[in-house]
Each structure stands twice: as structure tokens, then as C-alpha cells.
């Protein structure tokens, strides 16, 4: 993918789309335990990353403090490199994490997002809420390979459900 000098790109080729999603999960573990899994490089490495069969880790960094950086770089089957580059904006122990991050694919910045993770006590467990608000930049299109990948996964899921 050729790099572009921003000043030479015409206005018509630049765009920003915004989208938000929210995911809620319940865990049968207290907030302190769930939070701890986010708070150290060693713990986070046990669950946070690309899918094992499709993705190989290249760089994992975690400096868990306000102003600290997190980095996750990996290679996908097919050679694409994804680079998650994040800055912690707010940390309330056992309650909340807020970070802003950019996502680069093969050096091109495709999105910049704000993520809010909330840990709420729920009985003996935790209600976890992940809210992501993203700016998706310049109509990134990888010639449909991601869409094909998504379709393939959905087909597999569909087949698995039908078998059961």
C-alpha cells in the first residue's frame, strides 16, 4: 500500500465515519479479580490478542497507569500486520479503565477510538461493560478480505448451530 502525503490527497478521498458499540458480560468473579486480569502484562497476555490460529504476536507492551501506553502488534495469516497503539486516560482501580487507541493495518491508520471499560459489582460477581466509540478513517477497504473472513466465520457458526 503506497503511503500518501496528506497534503496531496484531495478532499474527496478523506472521510471519517463514527460508530459506537457496547458489550455487556457477567462474570462469576469479584470486580477486583476481573480488573486484575486487565492490569498486568502477564495477566492480559493470557486472554487478550488475535485468534490463535490466524494471528501471531510480534509486540506486546503494557504500562498500566494513567498516561501509560499499551501496544499489541501481530501478523495475520496472509501477512497483514495490525498495530493496536493505546494510551490510558483514566484508571479507577477495580472500577473503570478508559483508553484511547489507534488501529493501524500495514502502517495505515484505519481508526481511532475511545474505549471505556466498567467493572460493576453484581452480587458476588461482576458486570463488565465495554463501550467503544470509534472514528473510522478514509473508507479503509482491504479488497473485501475481512468481509470474506467474517462471512466464512459466520458460515462455520451457522453450520455448527445446525449440527446441534
Amino acid at each position: 500500500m503506497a503511503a500518501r502525503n496528506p497534503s496531496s490527497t484531495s478532499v474527496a478521498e478523506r472521510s471519517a465515519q463514527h460508530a459506537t458499540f457496547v458489550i455487556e458480560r457477567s462474570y462469576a468473579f469479584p470486580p477486583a479479580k476481573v480488573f486484575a486480569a486487565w492490569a498486568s502484562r502477564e495477566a492480559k497476555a493470557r486472554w487478550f490478542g488475535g485468534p490463535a490460529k490466524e494471528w501471531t504476536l510480534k509486540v506486546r507492551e503494557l504500562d498500566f497507569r494513567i498516561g501509560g501506553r499499551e501496544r499489541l502488534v501481530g501478523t495475520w495469516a496472509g501477512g497483514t500486520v495490525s498495530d493496536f497503539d493505546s494510551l490510558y486516560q483514566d484508571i479507577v482501580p477495580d472500577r473503570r479503565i478508559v483508553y484511547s487507541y489507534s488501529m493501524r493495518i500495514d502502517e495505515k491508520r484505519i481508526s481511532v477510538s475511545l474505549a471505556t471499560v466498567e467493572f460493576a459489582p453484581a452480587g458476588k460477581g461482576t458486570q463488565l461493560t465495554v463501550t467503544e466509540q470509534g472514528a473510522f478513517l478514509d473508507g479503509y477497504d482491504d479488497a473485501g478480505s475481512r468481509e470474506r473472513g467474517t462471512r466464512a466465520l459466520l458460515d462455520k457458526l451457522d453450520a455448527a448451530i445446525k449440527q446441534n
Partner: protein
Amino acid sequence: MSPDHLSATFSALADPTRRAILARLASGETSVTELAEPFEMSLPAVTKHLKVLQRAGLITRSREAQWRPCRLEAKPLKRAADWVEQYRRFWEQNLDNLEAYLRKLQQQEKKHGRKKS
């Protein structure tokens, strides 16, 4: 699971006039004057709506001639949804992994506790 909130693209669609404009453009590109016809609205008012749709990437307006035809662009809608879906699926998978990790950890702690005593 909470529904997706697609902001700029869908807030562009939140207005009935803009939806009607898109519906008309689905039949083919046309001029601003023709688009404005069914509405009891001034041309500047229609142009304002077109700007919102244009900014959301839902229509393009070519600069040819004086009549500046508008064309429907369906891709941005699909793309915003695709992107969000990929990010969401990444998270769903990782939050599953998180649960599995916490369970394993709990089992290990229980084992360790029994050994100690």
C-alpha cells in the same frame, strides 16, 4: 446485547426528508432542483440536507455543469457496520478468553490452597 449506535451515518438517516431523498436517488442520479420538488422547502434547505448526506458519505455530488447531479453511495453504510462488527467480534472472543482465564486461575488458586493446608 445493546443495539449498535452508528452515529454520523445513521443520524443522517434519522430525518424523513433525507430518507426520502435517498429513496429518490436509489432510482438514479438527479439534480438538486428535481430532488427539492416534492418538498415544501427552499432550495437552500434541501442543500443543507444534501450536505449532511454528503458528509456521511451516503451521496456524492459531481461538479459537472450547473445542475450538479447527486448519486447514492450505499457502501459507507455497509462499511461502518462491517468495521464495527469486526471490532465487536474481536471483543466478544477476547471476553470469552477472559472468562476462561479467570476460571483457570480460580482452579489453580483452589489447588494451591489445598496444598498449603
